[in-house]
């Protein structure tokens, strides 16, 4: 741990997402999915964002690290998980709409909190695993006039705490690097680090911790927005012949198909 004066406040925005092997059932109006049967976890990208922030705190003990989530009541579970991983305080912006919440609304919720609470650095995941929009971070940054770089794979705060050096990943194995003045918002690419497990002492603390809850003001928002008109099951783009029978039968069928197509001899 580096001693000396390194005062900094970091906010990490996290989201709960359904497990990837969940079954998603479309409601009768074709407007949204039934949320009831789903089990949730912390978005993988956000876990990486939190780990990046925690690694800064490991180096500089006077760094304050808050975690924020916009979502329904059970979002508190991932906030507690984040506290268990080592975050200092949790903020829950309660929003229990049973419909698609577009990224402008989510970002506005975060921004309204940020207006009264100063942070030097804001981390978000590059996208959420369930919506895959990649928008909330960049939107929140622009709404608050902060510089933003997305898909960051490496970061380093300058010793004078006035800027941050980041590297971001492009397609084709290219890396771009930037220097941003602080305060700034960066979105973190998934898989760039190994998110730590909650420690026992932190979990005990997390269970007792009070999570600050704020009600989201969705109706008061008049920003331009997009609406979800309906949701559907994706159409098949290929034949999708489903093999039936026992495992042995399926294997034999696949061998037959592949030899007919001359992929195996």
């Amino acid at each position, binding site marked *: 741990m580096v001693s000396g004066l390194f005062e900094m406040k970091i906010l990490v925005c996290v989201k709960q997402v359904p497990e990837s092997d969940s079954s998603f059932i479309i409601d009768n109006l074709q407007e949204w999915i039934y949320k009831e049967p789903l089990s949730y976890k912390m978005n993988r990208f956000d876990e990486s964002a939190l780990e990046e922030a925690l690694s800064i705190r490991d180096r500089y003990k006077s760094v304050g690290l808050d975690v924020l989530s916009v979502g329904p009541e059970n979002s508190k579970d991932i906030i507690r998980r984040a506290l268990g991983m080592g975050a200092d305080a949790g903020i829950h912006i309660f929003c229990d709409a049973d419909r698609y919440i577009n990224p402008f609304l989510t970002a506005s919720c975060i921004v309204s909190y940020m207006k009264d609470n100063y942070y030097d650095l804001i981390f978000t995941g590059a996208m959420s695993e369930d919506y895959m929009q*990649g928008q909330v971070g*960049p*939107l929140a940054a622009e709404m608050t006039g902060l510089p933003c770089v997305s898909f960051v794979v490496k970061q380093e705060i300058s010793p004078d705490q006035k800027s941050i050096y980041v590297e971001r990943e492009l*397609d*084709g194995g290219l890396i771009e690097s930037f*220097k941003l003045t602080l305060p700034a918002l960066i979105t973190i690419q998934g898989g760039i680090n190994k998110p730590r497990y909650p420690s026992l002492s932190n979990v005990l603390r997390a269970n007792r911790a009070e999570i600050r809850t704020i009600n989201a003001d969705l109706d008061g928002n008049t920003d331009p927005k997009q609406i979800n008109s309906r949701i559907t099951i994706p159409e098949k783009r290929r034949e*999708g012949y489903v093999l039936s029978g026992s495992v042995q039968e399926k*294997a034999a069928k696949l*061998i037959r198909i592949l030899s007919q197509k001359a992929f195996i001899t």
Partner: protein
Amino acid sequence: MRKAVQKLIFIIAEHHENKAKSVVFELAACADKIKRICPAEIKVIILGSETKKLSFEITHTTGLDAVAIEINELALYNAEIYKTVINNLAAELSPSFIIIGHTPRGLDFASGLAVGMKAACITGVEGLSEAEGKICFKRQMFYGKINAHITADSEPVIITVQPGAFEPYKPDNASPGRVETRRVECTPKFIRAKGIRRCKFQDSSISEAKVIVSAGNGIGAKENLDLIYRLAGIFPGSAVGGSRILIDRGWLEYRQQIGLTGAQVAPELYIACGISGASQHLAGMRGSGFVVAINRDPKAAIFNESDVCVVEDIKKFIHVFLEEYGKRGI
């Protein structure tokens, strides 16, 4: 001169080393599709410190007109400059739609641009249709198991388009579009670009393979990769690939990564093992000839992209498959 009723569509050209990225021609196809629903003029917007070669390439390939904006400070990409310059151009020309690639680069400025322009922003678009006089954009959600159909309730609309979702727009015998070159000054205040470098290397072996056996998160443990290699071993000219998560974990090398940030492949046979089929992966393999998917989850999105679907546990199935294969001809 644009007719009063005609809308305007901007395509933002992504480029690297003075060459247009292939996604630009797919964005042009998307713009062309919008144009068929509501008559519109299309302009390709090219930003860079040097644009002559790029404008030539793009206007000659697509036949579309281009506005090339040369900015000295843009020798390296900078989100701040992109947002400022496109915002100014949009204020002048009032486009109804701005089409950007759904790439790490495109996503870096699309949403921020939307805030400045007070535009809607819909990312990861894979298709579009007309609904009650508006354009409805289709995008994946929930691990590709659900399609959302999203409309904007106002214009302008910024969309980012998933690579591989539209066939490239390269009309035959198109007469080259006109190029309007402008030069503007723009100095970024908060972001300084420091450089661009290639840190990971792709080789052509995966793109040249006739058969690719590809592994995803569903393979469970690293040891099971052995089964994937054994399965690949029975096909002549085969290679093993994987989805991003296995590369992140260090189980496979970057040159084996298939998808948006990895290789785009089109083998004769693609066997997806334990791959869920999120759009980032599909962007790398949709051109494959014959697709077989093996996944325990019957609702995995990959099955919508497959010719043959095997709903089984990967480990169990490949074991039995190899056993059955070994029995042949005895």
